[in-house]
Every structure is written in structure tokens, then in C-alpha cells.
């Protein structure tokens, strides 16, 4: 659905990373973890297109606006990379944004008995918090979180507060283990033979590494992808990725916005 949302708060949680909470209609409380939203940053032509963001959290809380009682809120966690996110970072309490949400297909929550392994790289943790919040209700959840440096490691406390066991690694060793998050994660999988499902979101090289580990260890795995988007609703075909059957003769393109952003890793063509 399309709605006008009011910014409740917009905080810089780490240099260049912001967490924005905004009002949402009650229907949004039914969003699936992994679904996303499209934000019209300004009611103007620059930027022209909407920008896609994961749902970091959604819930119901006492409204910040007096007299409104309990109200649904939506949160996003974003990194300033260009003019859209730059403009967003200047938003204050009370400002308005136009939002389309929820969009796309979210994570499959799988079998509650299994252990859930979440892998996030940098801003890729955005959709994993709401996922973790949902999964911990029934399953054991471990979260492997990586980033370039200490500043790219966000919201560890929030995950821990959910009861999620959190493992941090950074490329430069400024926080947690030194090294790639995927190496730490693979070690855990190999050392620990219980049934598991993997959930990953982050930069493409990380997702590829996770998919290879899933393949090698025969672990079910879902990945959440990013792509340039214009419409967000499966109409423009701008955001496609290659499906597993893809070849030049038998095209198998999937829309990240509609068939995804979450895909079972074995549904995609990784080369």
C-alpha cells in the first residue's frame, strides 16, 4: 500500500548510518521479515525515483504523537551513499515521506526446530533484525555480523537483547574477530552438526561466499538481494537477476522486487 508517513526519529547510529522510525498504517504490522519498502525521498524530481530499503523493524508502540494511543511504527536502517540517502539523513521528527510497503517476498521462516544462522555484512543487517525478532520466538538464533571496520558494525546490542548469540568480525580487526564473517560462520557450521538454515544479506561477494558454503555443507540457505529498481512492483523489469535455469536460449530472469528480494540460494544462477 501507498501511504504518507511521519518521521518519528532519525538518528545517526554510527558515522554515515542512520536509523529512522516513522508512522505506518496498522496493516504494516503484518509485514513479513525480508519484505521491503520504497520511499519517495522528496516530493520533487531530484531524486526522481523511489529508493528501496529493507524493513529493519515494525511493531506497535505507544504513539509519540499525543492522544493517538498505540500506533504502528516502521523502522529502517540506512547508509548514506548518494543523494537520496543524503537527503533522508536530513529529515527530522515531524517531516513527511511517501512510502510504498510492504513489497516483495520475505524470508521463509522454515522449521522452528532448526537452528537459524543469520549472516549480515555491513548495511546488509537491515532486514535481519526484524527476521531475528520473529525467529527467536521459536528457534535458536545465531547472528554472524561482519563489516570493514568497527564503524560498520551496527546494532549488536539490539540483536543481543533479543537473545540472539552474536559473533562479530571485521576486516581490519578493530572489533571482534579479524577476518571475513563467512569464515567465522563456516567454522561454526562445521563444528556444530545440528540442523540449520542460513539467512544472509550483504554485499554480493559475501552472498556468493555464503552460497558456496551452503552448497558445500548442504545447508538450506536464503539470501536477500539488492538491485537497481524503478517500480518495485514487477512492472519495469529493471531489477532482474538470473534464475537457476537461465541461459541465453532459455531466459530465466527473476524480479528482485517481486519474486525476491529473498531467494533460496539454489534458485539463482551464481556465475
Amino acid at each position, binding site marked *: 500500500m501507498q501511504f504518507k508517513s511521519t518521521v518519528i526519529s532519525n538518528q545517526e547510529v554510527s558515522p554515515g548510518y542512520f536509523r529512522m522510525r516513522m508512522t505506518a498504517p496498522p496493516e504494516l504490522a503484518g509485514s513479513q521479515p525480508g519484505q521491503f519498502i520504497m520511499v519517495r525521498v522528496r516530493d520533487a524530481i*531530484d531524486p526522481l*525515483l523511489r529508493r528501496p530499503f529493507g524493513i529493519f523493524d515494525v511493531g506497535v508502540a505507544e504513539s509519540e504523537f499525543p492522544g493517538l494511543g498505540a500506533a504502528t511504527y516502521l523502522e529502517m536502517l540506512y547508509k548514506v551513499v548518494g543523494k537520496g540517502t543524503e537527503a533522508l539523513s536530513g529529515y527530522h521528527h515531524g517531516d513527511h515521506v511517501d512510502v510504498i510497503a510492504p513489497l516483495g517476498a520475505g524470508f521463509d521462516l522454515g522449521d522452528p526446530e532448526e537452528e537459524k544462522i543469520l549472516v549480515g555484512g555491513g548495511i546488509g543487517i537491515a532486514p535481519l533484525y526484524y527476521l531475528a525478532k520473529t525467529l527467536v520466538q521459536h528457534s535458536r538464533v545465531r547472528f554472524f555480523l561482519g563489516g570493514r571496520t568497527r564503524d560498520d558494525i551496527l546494532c549488536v546490542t539490539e540483536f543481543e537483547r533479543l537473545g540472539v548469540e552474536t559473533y562479530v568480525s571485521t576486516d581490519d580487526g578493530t572489533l571482534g574477530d579479524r577476518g571475513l564473517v563467512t569464515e567465522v560462520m563456516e567454522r561454526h557450521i562445521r563444528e556444530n552438526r545440528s540442523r540449520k538454515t542460513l539467512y544472509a544479506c550483504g554485499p554480493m561477494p559475501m552472498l556468493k561466499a555464503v552460497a558456496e558454503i551452503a552448497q558445500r555443507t548442504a545447508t538450506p540457505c536464503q539470501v536477500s538481494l539488492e538491485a537497481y529498481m524503478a*517500480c518495485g512492483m514487477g*512492472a*519495469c*523489469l529493471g531489477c*532482474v537477476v538470473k534464475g537457476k535455469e537461465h541461459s541465453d536460449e532459455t531466459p530465466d*530472469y527473476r524480479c528482485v522486487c517481486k519474486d525476491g528480494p529473498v531467494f533460496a540460494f539454489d534458485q539463482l544462477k551464481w556465475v
Partner: protein
Amino acid sequence: MSKPDLSVEIAGITFRNPVMTASGTFGYGEEFADYVDLESIGAIITKGLSIKPKAGNPTPRIQETTGGMLNAIGLQNVGIEAFVEHKVPFLRTVSTPVIVNFFGNTVEEYAELAERLDRIPEVTGVEINISCPNVKHGGIVFGTDPKAAYSVVKAVREATIKPVIAKLSPNVTDIVEMAWACADAEADALSLINTLTGMAIDVKRRRPVLANVTGGLSGPAVKPVALRMVWQVARAVKIPVIGIGGIMSGTDALEFMLAGASAVQVGTANFLDPSAAQRIAGEMETYLEQNGIHDVKELIGALEV
């Protein structure tokens, strides 16, 4: 005052209002059903169709530019069989006219597809995308050569009794010459403009942003060029013209009608505002009401030069 009359007639079809959705920006209608009342717009024009399914281009396929966007989707589409099986059933549930945009790589392909579309009752009319490479003639684009355009339109004309709209490419020296060629081939109407060919470069990577290198520019950035071409063509031909290019508001749509368009298509605007087509029709109605204009048809070509 009674409600103004927004209906327009093109090729014997009455449209409840002049606002149509541009091909490739509105899927097959269904994708937008949650955001726009499909019964409130003039017509649905579907994504460019070919006989066989088409894979389209590698990604990235889109890039925002100042006031516009580039796309190089590469005409990815499901092909006519899947269209009939998966898309037509939904379109059947909507009373709004459905115009199918389509293309081929040879004159024969255009004709064959027109003939197959002719047999589908849910299809109100067809729109020929002539901005496609002519495979038989070394890849030169049908839409930039008046003779090639004539032959494609003529072949389609002979293959269907449904209304035929020829959609013109703006990447030409003389748009009027192209319009004449299509009118001579007995198109019922002309629509313009398709996208302007453009390019974007990523300085850091020293590469084109689009995998396809070049792409089609659309959005408000191109509106001045589109308006100029619609004005030139509408003065030159007797058949109705449908204006396309950067329409974001009711005022934009009215500018095209004053320039001579009998209807308009809304493209890129659907991406920023999925209810754009409905909103624009509403804004036109409000304008007419506020200015005491009883019939939108009074405005067609009413520009005083």
C-alpha cells in the same frame, strides 16, 4: 456545472478519458491493481510483446539521470503464448480498453504477431513499437527509416482490423517524415515519443553504467522534446496523435493536448507514483471544472501560435 466530458475517441474507440499508461511502465496492468483503480484510466497499454519470449539485456538495466532515467530492459517479455495464458485472463476482468504494444525483428514477424493479436477479443487495439532493429537489413532501426516504417505499418494494417497505433522514435532528423510514412501506411493513430537514446558513465569504474552501454531516456527531462515533436506531427497529419514523454501532472497532459494530442500516455511517472495515471486524469478533470471547460476535446490542438 455538470461534470466535464473527458472522453476522447480514437480510431472508433471511445476512451473514458485521455490518460493511458505507456508500454513497459505498467506491466500488464495487474501489477498496479492495488494502487490504481484500473477502471479510472483511459486505456492500459501493455509491455512490448514478441512472438517468442525474449530474455532482454543483462543488468544493470536502469539508471537515474537528471530529471529522467535511462532504461535498457531490452524488451524482455513473456511472448504471445504466455501472454494469452497468464495475462489475458486478468485483463478480461477489466472494462478499460487494452492496447497491446508489440514488436518484431522482421516485417513478417510484425505481421504474424498482429494477426495473432487480431484474434484475441480482449485486445482492443495494437501499438507498433517501430524502434527495433531490422534484422534483415543489417540492424538499422525500423523507426528511423521512413520506408522501413511504412512497410512494417502496412503489413500490420493488413493483418488486423483492430485499431493500429504506430509509435514513433524521437531519434530522427525529421519526425514529420516518419509520421507521414506511418499515416500513408494507414495507421489509425500515431503515438510519440518513445525514448531518446542516451548513455551514463560510472567514472570510478570507467565503465558505462548500463550493461547494454546505451539506453532509452524518459521522464520529465525529455518533455520539451516530446512536446515539440507532438506539435510538429499533429499539424502535419490528419490522424489522431497520442502524446508521450515526461508527463507527471494534469497540466503536463493538457500541454500535450493543446499541442495537438488527442490522448496521452504516462510512463516514468508510474514508478514514482503508482497511481499517477488516475491522479493525472483527476487533475485534468479539476482543471476543466475550474476553467468552465465542458469538453476536453475543445482543447485538442487549441494552442494559439
